[in-house]
């Protein structure tokens, strides 16, 4: 996937939190966001990096990109 520069409307910083902290933080923010908004989830938890896309798939939101930042991942999500 080519790296694009998404400008998130909202940043959810869940670094250092383990499963399911990042997912729970994201769900909370996604619920409060308007449709079409882009959220960036920052996580250092590999399990969450792999699990959050499964939740997005089921919940119907779009995973735009996962960017490896070296010491954490950025997951860009567009709310449906």
């Amino acid at each position, binding site marked *: 996937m080519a790296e694009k520069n998404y400008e998130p409307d909202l940043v959810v910083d869940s670094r*250092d939190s*383990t499963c399911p902290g990042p*997912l729970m933080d994201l*769900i*909370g923010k996604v619920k409060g966001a308007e449709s079409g908004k882009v959220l960036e989830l920052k996580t250092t938890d590999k399990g969450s990096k792999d699990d959050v896309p499964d939740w997005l798939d*089921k919940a119907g939101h779009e995973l735009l990109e996962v960017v490896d930042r070296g010491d954490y991942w950025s997951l860009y999500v567009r709310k449906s």
Partner: protein
Amino acid sequence: MDGFAIVLSSDELERVQAVSIISSVAAASDIPVDIFVTMNGFRAFDKEVIQNRDFNGGEAAEAMMNAEDVEVPLYPEQLEQAKSLGPLSIHACEMTMELMGKSLDDMVELFDGTLGVAGFLNAAEDKQVIFV
């Protein structure tokens, strides 16, 4: 089937934590969850036990308690967060609480109320039941 009804009868941290994780993510995803706390499960919700972090458990519980550099979200905060995000109800077994000489005042403020077995079966009627 519409959601999960989970019977929590253990106070082992790893079991309580697993129930909390699954329930919280389900409820936050709008899947209804009812947790029925009974038997030894009550100990995990006792204010003093939580305040003193006096948890029972095995290897995984110790790993959670001693985790360094990472923040493990423990079940009291997690369940509270989940209740604000979705359909999660936590019920206390009236019979066990009476037997143990406890009341909801001794417990952390996560309970929606007390239930007897008939009340639990009603709540569980259309749900998948999980016994822990």
